[in-house]
């Protein structure tokens, strides 16, 4: 009796009536976003994946998303609501959702969870991320051919491993083209504050940077470059429309194949709690089309390295690699193991900044 009443209260009267006489239920899939979807940026790329799932499976699935979910105590409630509301597969798209996802997964063993950029799994929790640093490596190649002042600027949000991997890969590739170039890093302490990113970009340019890139969620850095005639490389999405003359390319992530694949596994009851960390070869990291302003040498160098990635031949963190203090971190002939890449908390030689 109480259960019936609770269900009655939980379901607005209009919806109740529509539940009567439904045929095979489409699988409900939920997405939890940490920021607004917008038209570019981290969440937008995940949203593209969601839309691809919708398009691919039509009536067999019913997707929904919740945006702007704060990473504190609220996220657990939202994730739990999605599970309690009958979502069979839930994607939580930010590191800060890791522990809430694990907690909710324990309470809902039949529901499947996919957590992005985390490291905790369970019987019903898979993790996934992309080797963004491979794209950063290619970005470094392009930048190396273009920068003349040998000073490059990097506006980053927080010194977490994913960001440091990117900065390091960028610098390593850059210094293969220009061995004495320097990358100056400035942290804005915010994933999203266009004004601060702008101020940081202005500062870097004032200190002689003639090439900028960023690991933040807004388009401010690319716009700063466009305004001042400084070439840039964007991040997350193709930001060329914000810098038609100066944005050389962007390091983007493509979750569509991964999402479509995982949903298929869930539909076929073949889902397993895996850990996926795909890069360029897996199609999870893609470079936006190169601008016409990119010199041919840069383009062909980048394309060659891209082919190496596709063939699985290129490992950016192959020694010898020294860190900022001169200490050797990766000896010659060996490559940094995945778990060390995951926990990266140091900068390579040539980076000026504090990790």
């Amino acid at each position: 009796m109480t259960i019936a009443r609770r269900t009655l209260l939980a379901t607005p009267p209009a919806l109740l009536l529509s539940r009567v006489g439904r045929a095979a239920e489409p699988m409900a899939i939920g997405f939890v976003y940490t920021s607004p979807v917008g038209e570019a940026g981290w969440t937008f790329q995940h949203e593209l994946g969601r839309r691809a799932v919708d398009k691919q499976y039509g009536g067999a699935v019913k997707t929904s998303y919740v945006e702007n979910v704060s990473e504190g105590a609220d996220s657990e409630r939202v994730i739990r609501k999605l599970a309690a509301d009958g979502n069979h597969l839930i994607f939580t798209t930010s590191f800060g959702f890791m522990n809430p996802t694990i907690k909710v997964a324990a309470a809902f063993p039949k529901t499947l969870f996919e957590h992005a950029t985390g490291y905790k799994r369970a019987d019903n929790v898979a993790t996934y991320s992309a080797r963004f640093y491979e794209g950063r490596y290619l970005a470094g190649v392009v930048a190396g051919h273009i920068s003349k002042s040998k000073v490059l600027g990097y506006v980053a949000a927080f010194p977490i491993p994913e960001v440091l991997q990117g900065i390091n890969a960028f610098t390593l590739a850059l210094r293969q083209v220009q061995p004495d170039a320097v990358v100056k890093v400035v942290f804005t302490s915010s994933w999203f504050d266009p004004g601060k990113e702008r101020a940081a970009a202005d500062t870097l340019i004032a200190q002689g940077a003639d090439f900028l890139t960023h690991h933040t969620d807004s388009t401010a850095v690319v716009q700063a470059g466009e305004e001042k005639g400084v070439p840039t490389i964007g991040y997350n999405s193709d930001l060329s429309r914000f810098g038609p003359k100066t944005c050389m390319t962007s390091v983007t992530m493509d979750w569509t194949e991964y999402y479509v694949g995982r949903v298929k596994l869930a539909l076929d009851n073949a889902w397993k709690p895996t850990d996926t960390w795909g890069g360029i070869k897996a199609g999870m990291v893609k470079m936006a089309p190169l601008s016409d302003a990119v010199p041919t040498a840069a383009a062909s160098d980048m394309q060659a390295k891209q082919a190496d990635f596709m063939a699985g031949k290129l490992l950016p963190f192959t020694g010898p690699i020294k860190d900022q203090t001169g200490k050797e971190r990766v000896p010659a002939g060996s490559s940094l193991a995945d778990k060390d890449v995951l926990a990266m908390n140091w900068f390579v030689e040539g980076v000026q900044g504090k990790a």
Partner: protein
Amino acid sequence: MRLKLERRPEASRFWFYLSPVLAVALSALAAAGLFALLGVAPGQALWLMVVTPLANVYGLAELGLKATPLLLCAVGIAVAVRANVWNIGAEGQFTMGAIAGGGIALLFGEDGGAWVLPLMLLAGVAGGLVWAAIPALLRTRCNAHEILTTLMLTYVATQLLGYLVHGPWQDPEGYSFPQTKQFDSAALLAPLIPGTRLNLGAVFALLAVPCASVLLRQTLAGYRLRVVGLAPAAASYAGFSQAGAVWLGLLVSGGLAGLAGVCEVAGPIGQLTPVISPGYGFAAIIVAFLGRLSPAGILAASLLMALLYLGGEQLQITLQIPTAATGVVQGMLLFFLLAADVLVGFRVRLIGRSVAAPAHA
């Protein structure tokens, strides 16, 4: 013809209780209009917003959980405001309470024992106290206005938390992510009702209501505080020190905010992370005023605000209404509440244009 407000000789008890009802009714209408504009069925949306979140035990517990930090911070802020002390920095005191309590958890959590948790809670209160003591000192000794100092210190506290979870207190097994290790069970607030997240913090919040009431109305310190706030000249004539009121107001609100902070990290979050509050300290200011600065009113207001947050989430989940709409609805509700409250102290009169000149007999 125009409307004129006439002050009532004494506050209308009728409107005191009815104005919130009127405001809620008006906002429901306005919200319905907004939902219709956004293309969703207004009735369904309103139902989802205010009824569905409370439809089960978990939902009710979440209401309590969400209302707890609001209630604690708001009671403290109200006490301070009564002394004409504007504590805009409850968010920062919340953060410092979390840091202090979290520090104890990280230091002693492994040792276990029943004494860890009380020590953490005390540390949390102390953390908030200390962070509020700084603006109190700056105001009483250096005349620095607390609106500025409390607000600036909020940002400083957030950066300090960021520094700690990224640097010295980082979980060594955490792959260099900015977070501390998860607290051991001895350092966690257990749920009061199994299957929910409602914890001891809610009890503290509920206790804070009568305690603040007693403080304000039955103690000499509270009396002095209120007089200083209402009539500073009379207060100084009576020998009530303004500095004393400033200290009391800030310390009480700092301590309560710090308690809210440690309860949040020892409860639902279970560790220290860069983001521990979605803005409780600021929302609590509104709760304090919605509750008309009285502890009992604040209890009701905090539940209402918490419901609005939960409802907004529900609207997003079920109808995909953007969170922005929740903000608009919250704002409108507040406007109506604040507007309707005018009827408590003032009477609305229609003044005719053709008023005959008063006859001089």
